[in-house]
Every structure is written in structure tokens, then in C-alpha cells.
């Protein structure tokens, strides 16, 4: 008798996927959890590291000698104070002004001279875009004034080099220093970034048609000096991110001793009166952390202190209200097995 069989079972061909620890999600893994030990020691370590670093930063910031002389108000006599804008816009008025300052603590050279502008929006979108980097570096792109409107061309449609609002509004106050009636040399070499001089501003690009338009913004440029040597311009064109900023004016290579009388002759040309901005002259030394800025040090002390506090609070909590980790009695379905069964 024939023995019937059911339909053949599916052939055993291997569709089984290849095995790998990745495909099976079985890669060995480190599974840390937030144990009190880990967390408390993290906070302690942060506290222990941050407080000394904060102290060091604060100490070096405090060791910076800095003198800030606001002169935009000082350089206005009473007559002009009534109408400062008209005064500053008038080419005829005498804008020279003298101020003096006695050195209180010894300043070790090199001493950096900055000018500081407040309430000045170099980061304004209209302003910050108003430049043409190609034009600055390449003599062949002289005519390329894209993005520079409204300071792209003169009335006679000649391209302006350097074009744009940034260059046009170049800062034009100047300072001269006398220490104890002796003239002090201000080194204005190498105040800009070397990379800017070598790659961003061309050695064969000369200012052209600059400040010849109807409106005169700021400083004029010597048309015989190539752009990469116009360091004031290069410094100015590194736009600031904040509305209050300092820019390097020059360096004094000598030391200033205590009680030296420094006389400063300022050509107060730049118009900040119109928008209520301040102008300051800064003399400052520098350390490894830069100029005087206690922020980082204070912030480090604060964060370090709070971390230590956290560590202490957590230790106290751990001691006062210990709680075993992973206690299954905290699982509600173990407390109340009826609910889900």
C-alpha cells in the first residue's frame, strides 16, 4: 500500500542571517549608572580643579595694569558741548585736545595702547557684510565691489579701494604721548594679525578713490602705501562681535614707572557723539590670559564653589537619607501585584 505524505516541508535552505555581535546588538558595552560615588566624586573633582584655576586666572587678570581714559567728553569744551555733532562734523574746528595721567603702578613693557568704542555696532548686519575680501587681496579684482553698496563707487562711478562701510568708517583719532615731557615712541608695526597682512590684504593693492565721495566717513589712507601695510585699516577691518570693543592702536616698548606723568595729545576726529558712543584710550599690559578680565576667574570660582556645595549636599543626603539603589520594592507592580496580573 502506498504511504501518502503531506506536501514537502519547505526546503532547508539557509536564509538565516549572518551572525555578528553588531547585528545581534550584543556588542560589549560599558553601562555606567549614576551611583553616589561617581556623582559625588565628579562634583568634588570639578570643585577641586576649578577653584585653583579660577584663582590663577583671577590673579593674573589682577596683575594686569590697565589705565582707561575716557576722552570723548573731556575733549569737548563748554561751547562745543552744546552741539557736539556739529563740532565734530566741521572740518574747520580744532579738534586737538590734551590730557594727562599719572602712572600709579609700574607698567612693564610692552604696553599695549587700545582705543575702546562703546555702543558701536561693528556687528550690524548691514555693516559687517559691507566689504569685499577679493578686492582687498588681489589687484586684478580692483573693480569688484560686490557687497560694498553704498560705499562701492564714487559719484563718477569709479570703484573705491578699499570699498564698503567698514573701510569707509575707519577710526581716525590719533594719539601722541609724552612721558615727563619726553616724547614716547609708539610702535605701530605688527599691531595687526600676520596672517591678515600676508593673505588677506594684498601687497600690490593701493587705496584708490578712497573717501572721495560726497560723504567722508573716517580716516583717509595714503594712496602710496599698499593695503597690507595699512595696519590701522587691517585692525579695523577685523570687525568686533560686541558693541563695546577695543582695538589695538600701537605698542609702547618701554616701561612706565610709578609717578611718571604721561601727557597725551589726542586728535579727537571720530564722530561718536551722534549715536552717544564713548571713546576711551586704554593703556594695558598683558599676561598669559590676555588683558584685564576678571570674568573667567570669577566664573571658575563660582562653578567650582557650587560643585563643591553640590558634592557636600549629596554627601549629606546620602548620609541622612540613604536609599538603596535598585531596590525592587520600588517597582509598583511588586508592591501591588494584583494590578497587572
Amino acid at each position, binding site marked *: 500500500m502506498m504511504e501518502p505524505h*503531506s506536501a514537502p516541508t519547505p526546503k532547508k535552505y539557509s536564509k538565516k542571517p549572518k551572525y555578528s555581535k553588531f547585528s545581534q546588538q550584543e556588542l560589549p558595552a560599558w553601562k555606567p*549608572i549614576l551611583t553616589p560615588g561617581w556623582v559625588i566624586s565628579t*562634583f568634588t573633582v*570639578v570643585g577641586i580643579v576649578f577653584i585653583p584655576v579660577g584663582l590663577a586666572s583671577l590673579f593674573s587678570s589682577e596683575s594686569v595694569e590697565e589705565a582707561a581714559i575716557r576722552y570723548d567728553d573731556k575733549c569737548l569744551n563748554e561751547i562745543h558741548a552744546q552741539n557736539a555733532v556739529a563740532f565734530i562734523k566741521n572740518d574747520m574746528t580744532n579738534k586737538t585736545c590734551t590730557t594727562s595721567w599719572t602712572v600709579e603702578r609700574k607698567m612693564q613693557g610692552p604696553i599695549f595702547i587700545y582705543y575702546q568704542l562703546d555702543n558701536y555696532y561693528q556687528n550690524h548686519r548691514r555693516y559687517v557684510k559691507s566689504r569685499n575680501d577679493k578686492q582687498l587681496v588681489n589687484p586684478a579684482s580692483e573693480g569688484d565691489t560686490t557687497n560694498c553698496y553704498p560705499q562701492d563707487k564714487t559719484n563718477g562711478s569709479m570703484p573705491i579701494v578699499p570699498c564698503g*562701510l567698514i573701510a569707509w568708517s575707519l577710526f581716525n583719532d590719533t594719539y601722541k604721548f609724552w612721558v615727563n615731557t619726553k616724547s614716547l615712541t609708539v610702535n605701530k608695526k605688527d599691531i595687526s594679525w600676520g596672517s591678515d597682512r600676508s593673505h588677506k590684504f594684498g601687497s600690490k593693492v593701493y587705496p584708490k578713490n578712497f573717501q572721495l565721495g560726497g560723504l567722508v566717513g573716517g580716516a583717509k589712507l595714503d594712496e602710496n602705501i599698499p593695503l597690507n601695510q595699512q595696519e590701522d585699516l587691517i585692525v579695523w577691518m577685523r570687525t568686533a*562681535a560686541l558693541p563695546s570693543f577695543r582695538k589695538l592702536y600701537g605698542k609702547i616698548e618701554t616701561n612706565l614707572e610709578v609717578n611718571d606723568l604721561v601727557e597725551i595729545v589726542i586728535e579727537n576726529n571720530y564722530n561718536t557723539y551722534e549715536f552717544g558712543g564713548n571713546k576711551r584710550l586704554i593703556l594695558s599690559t598683558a599676561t598669559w590670559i590676555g588683558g584685564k578680565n576678571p*570674568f573667567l576667574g570669577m566664573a571658575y570660582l563660582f*562653578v567650582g564653589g557650587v560643585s563643591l556645595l553640590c558634592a557636600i549636599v549629596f554627601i549629606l543626603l546620602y548620609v541622612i537619607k540613604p536609599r538603596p539603589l535598585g531596590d525592587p520594592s520600588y517597582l509598583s507592580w511588586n508592591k501591588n501585584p494584583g494590578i497587572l496580573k
Partner: protein
Amino acid sequence: MSRGIPEPKLTAMDAMIDKLTGAIFVFQIVVVMVLGIAGNVWKDTEAKKQWYVLYPDKGPWYELLIIPLRFELLCSIMIPISIKVSLDLVKGLYAKFIDWDHRMVDLETSTPSNATNTAISEDLGQVEYILTDKTGTLTENKMIFRRCCISGIFYGNENGDALKDVELLHAVSSGSPDAVQFLTIMAICNTVIPTQSKTGDILYKAQSQDEDALVQAAAHLHMVFFNKSGNILEVKFNSSILQYEVLETLEFTSDRKRMSLVLRDCQNGKILLLSKGADEAILPYARTGQQTRNFIEAVEQYAHLGLRTLCLAWRELREDEYQEWSLMFKEANSTLVDREWRVAEVCQRIEHNLEVLGVTAIEDRLQDGVPETIETLRKAGINFWMLTGDKQNTAIQIALSCNFISPEPKGQLLSIDGKTEDEVRRSLERVLLTMRITTSEPKDVAFVIDGWALDFALNHYRKAFTELAILSRTAICCRVTPSQKAQLVQILKSCDYRTLAIGDGGNDVRMIQQADIGVGISGREGLQAARAADYSIGKFRFLKRLILVHGRYSYNRTAFLSQYSFYKSLLICFIQIFFSFISGVSGTSLFNSVSLMAYNVFYTSVPVLVSVLDKDLSEETVIQHPQILFYCQAGRLLNPSTFAGWFGRSLFHAVVVFLISIHAYAYDKSEMEEVSMVALSGCIWLQAFVVAMETNSFTILQHLAIWGNLAGFYAINWIFSALPASGMYTIMFRLCRQPSYWISIFLMTAAGMSPILAIKYFRYTYRPSKINTLQQAERLGGPIVSLGTIEPQPRPLIEKDVSTLSITQPKNRNPVYEPLLSDSPNATRRSSGTPFDFFQSQSRSSLPNYSRNCKDN
């Protein structure tokens, strides 16, 4: 098989992400409008005085729009475009993990699991209702003929196997006409095609496993169906060969629930109609005068044992009757409109006056691990509905044996039935009342409904039935058609539940397509369901792993990834907004375009992509504590409040980064490009630590991606800093040489992460979520309370000894089943009309999770 048009499926998570995106969009519009107005005010007041900006005195009116549009551009990064790409990538990987999973390969057929739909893995973790088919899904669909009742005589009751019943063998060998006719119908009333192998063995190709079982059984009883050539069927009975010519085949449909053959007996030229089908499709059409009580009793008894029953019947046709009918049948078959209905109607005209011969009972064993799987998934808070085409009693027995419903007194089964609309309504109301008044007693209440009553309930009392659906955690729907299955899915979906439909056959296709997630068992009934499904698996028990492991991980991972994507986009956008306040509200971007682009594409997307490997809990822990799935079902990891946390975090981090950048890099250092890179570095460092802190398990890939990405950030920026043409020429080199840069970065990291670490630690230790507690227990090696043996006891894969199954041996049946089913056949006879009347008397019942089941829609 009529397939509906499948709609594209959207996961609950995607919907939530879309909602959050919408909220962020509104926020963005508000920010743009406020800043736009502020910008215009500033322009009209302050900017006129800032002579170096050279604003023209009078511009055209549309200049008013320029500043808002600039802010719109600036804020457009608030909605992360990268989220779509990232999500698609990780979803693809989730699907691959399912495809690759070795623990979800069916070893019997070496079929791996397959995710056809790669986009909905997260939904697996949020399933609330599982609607399951019975045959082939819960059971193996390996049919074995066990018992039969021929003309009122029961065979196979003694030893549980009719093929070994001496009385039946005797009846056959002695040529009892009823028995022979019965065997003939078993052998040929089907669409099976026999083929003869080279060795002379006969192989059967059957579409239906039931038919296969019947043909096999008939062959064992010496009625061997051995050849089918064209319309001629050849059967060998003992040593004689009988030939039949098939005249018409009246096919099986799920509505008709029977199939018939019209054939000519070549021995004597008589025309015969052979029918087999469900009892309610055969017994009402018995010849007048025939007593069908015996058969009803047999059907009841077999169903109580969980066996599948079929009634066999026949009659002789007169030549003219056949000829007349044949014409109608041909005409009906060739109609174009409503053909199915017309054919059914014509079939009806000949299928009456039948001589009922007997009842067959076929056993369909439960698959391995089904009870454990159902128990685990129910612990995970998933409600089960069984939708089957089988008889009520069969369904209840299977439901009992696979933990689907609990036996008395723990469980209670309420029945909805009735012959008329009014009866159904009253029954439905009674059940509903019972469900409503029950308090939070820990008791399983389920309801059972058949296709007839369901039809009324769905069409006329939809509201009441919907309420019942919400109240009931378990339901058994028997005798339901494919379209009713789909309708039930629709009802649950309309209550905002995530539904998963699992089935194996063509009749489940519509339900599978309708459900949020369709799972097909690539089983014996072909691949129709598996093809239509979003996921296909080899065995029902893989569903546990599919949901608890793959679904849960997918949900957790996507929850992190999506919220993180918003976090990082908001972070950089907030910094831009803050910067606008110190740049004259003019819409200046602090970051250059290269950085902004790379921020989204490289710096922040690589580390988060490896979160696809993150596992908050090990697979074993999840399987042991399936209740933890609640966090996914309830959407605890991605909802407006967790999102608010991420929103706050990005706001806080933006404040930290911005304030530290502008204060540490103030005065002489306030060069635009430098400040920009300091702020960007701060963001990158913070995000690396955020990802690290949110990662639960670090594999080598995570370390590579998180810390490698940080190194990559510097590498990329050094490259850009080396290009004279780029805006940031030399910037990164300068910064990396400055001590104050590194001091600022560490400050940002510490100030940004400390509060998060502190809060997280506090919550983790003093307000732990269940997930946290399990993590701690798992990793500290603490005592994990086992919830009993949920893991299936490994059984031999192919278990020949069927007698272990309780339903084949009523005497050894587990005593806990006793209260539900009365053991003696007498009890079943009493309740032949409404077999579960006695459940309704116990109306004081309970629903444990009423509150959990009720959702605010």
C-alpha cells in the same frame, strides 16, 4: 482575496514629532515677528544715529519686511531638517536588527523574521491591543484528524485517535455504507491535488490544512485519493479503483462557510452533491426529517475539546435538476457585477435537502511558547483580542489553554449573543452594565461574541460596542469574517489605541492592513498575510521579542534621537537670537555658513546616530519585567513635557555658551570670527556630553562617535583654518593656542553639565522611574525579583507526542479549567442554544484596569 487599499502608516511617535514640530514652528514665527518688529523699531530710532551704517533716509515700504525675513532665515534652523534623515536612517537600522535577529529565526523552516515596513518599529513599543487570529497564529496549523462522528456513532473518544479506533476500522472494513460514503467525502470533497513521487508515494498539495488532514486520514482508512487528471478523480478503496467526474466545484468562501462538489459517479452514472462545511452552514440544510441533534451534540463536544469540526453531507441529484441548476451556475459565474454574491446565491439553491453523514474533528496544536508569550505581553499591559473564524467553544478552549482568558474564579467570561437585533442589544447592554459596575477587583473579565451578534453590534450599536471595547481587556470574537476583523481593528483605532494585528492567512490580510501594525506569520497557509504585513515572523512566540525588545528599544532610541535633534537645533538658534540683541537686532549671524551647515550635518548628527545601539536595560531584564513597557505605551519618553525639558535644556545651554563667550572674549578679544568659534566649540562640547550623559550603554562605537566626533570637529576646523580663502583662516589655530579658549570651553562644559548631572542624579536616586530602578538593580547585581517563570520552558521543537496537550485527554485536564467547562457532555447539551448562559448569571464581575483603559480622546 479582496485587499483593501493599504494606507501609509504613521507611527504615534511620528505624529507626536509632527505635533512638536508644529509647536516649534509657531514659536519660530512668534520669535521672527517679535524680533522683526524690534529690528524695525531699532532701525528707525537707533540706526539713524549710527551714521556708519548709512541707512538711507527713506526706503520703499517693503524694506519693513527685510529684517523679519532675515530673522526668518536665521531661525529656519530651529526646525531640524536633519531629523528626517536621521530618523530614516535609524528606522532602517531598527528594521535590519529585526531581520538579523538570530533569536527570531524559525529553526524549523529556517525563516528569519522580516520587517517589510521599515518606518514603524517604534509603534511596536507602543502597542496596546493585539488582535490575533487563532488558526495558524496561536496554533501550529498542523491539522491532525482526531475524532469523528458517523451517523451518531462516536469514534476516537476512547483513545483520542479515531484512526486507531478498532470500531471505526471495523466499520470501514465491513463496508458500512455510511462510513464508506463518509470516507469518500473526506477523500474527494476538496481541492487537493495528489501527486505521485518517483518512489510511488503520494503527496498531496492542499491549500487548506483541514482538507489535507482529512485526505490523509481517509488514506489511512484505505480510501486513498491517488490521482486527479482533468475532471476525473481516482480513488482506491481497499483494492478497487473508483472514478468520479467532477462536474462543478462550489468553492469555499468565508461567507458561505462550506464547499461542495457536484460529481458523477463513473461506476453507476449517478450525479452526487458532496458538501462539507461548518455546522451552521450544513445542519440547517439537512433533509427534512433527518435528526441533527446527534450532530449538534458531537459538534459541541468536539468544540469543547478545542477541536475543529466540519460536517459532511451529501445527496443525489436528479439529472434534470442538475442540468437546470448548471445553466444558472454558469450564468452566475459569468456575470460581471456582484459575481461573488450571485454565485453564492445560486449555490444556495442546490445545497439543501442534504443527508448529513457525520462530523469530523481535527486537532490543531498550540504553537510552542504561546501561553508564555501571551502571559508576558499581558503583563506588559497589552490587551488581547482573539478574532477567529472558528466556533465559539473551540475558540474558548484555545483561549483557556493559552492563558488568553483565566479560568474561574479568577476570570470571568461574558457572552454577547442573540438571534435577533433586540436580543443582541439587550445582551450587549447587560454585558456593558456588568463591565461598568465592576470595581477594581483584580479579575480578568472578557467577553465573547460571535459574528452574527457582532454584525448587529457593529451596525446598530456601534457606540455601546465601542465603549465595551474600551472597557474590556480581553475579547474573543468567533465566526467573524475578514471584513469584520478589519472593522474591529477600526473601532479600536478610532478610540486612539495602538493596535497590532497578527495573522497567518489570507483572511487576515484586511485586518493586518487596517491595524497600526500588521504582523504576518509566515506559516503553512502561504505567504499572503506575511506579504501584506509590516512584519513577518515565523512563530507567534517571536512576538514577545519583537515588541518587548525591538519595539521598546526602537521607541526609546527614537525618543532620544528626535528630542535631541530639536535640542541641538534650538541651542544654536537661541545663540543666534541672543546675538541679535547685541548686534542692533539686525539679523547678523554669529556663525558663518560653513559652520552652520557642518553643525547639522556632521558635528551633531554622528554622535546621536549611534544611539541606535543604546540599551537602557538588558533584554533579559525587559523580558523579566515586561511591565516596563508601560513607559513606551504611555509615551512617557516623548511627550510635550519631556520635550519642554529638552527645550529648557537648550535654552539654558544657549545662555551658558553665549554669556561665557561674550564675557570671556570681551574687549580686545571680541573679534567676530573668534567669538563665533568659541561659541560653536562650546556647543559641540556640550552636545557631546549631553549625548554621553543620555547614553545608557557605551559600546566601542558610541565612544568612537561621541569622542571621535569631538576630535573631528577640531580636525575639520583646522582644515578650514588652513585655507587662506576661507573666512576663518588661522582662527582655529589661534584659538587653540590661547589658554583662555580652553579655560572658556571647560567652563561652558562644567557650567552647562553640572546642573543637568545634579538634577539627573537627584531624580535617579530619590525619584527614580521604574526604568532607573531596574537599571540599578541590573547593574549593581542586586536582587532582581523574578516574576515567576515567564521564560518558556524549552520544549523539543517537534513534539510527536500530542497526548501532552490537555485538550486531547479530558480526564487529565488541568483542574483549574474545570469551572469554565463542564466536563460531562450532558452539560453541553443543555446549553446547545446559548452555550454560555451560565456565565451571564455571574454578573458581579470586575474589570481591573478600568482607569488605565480609559483614555481621554
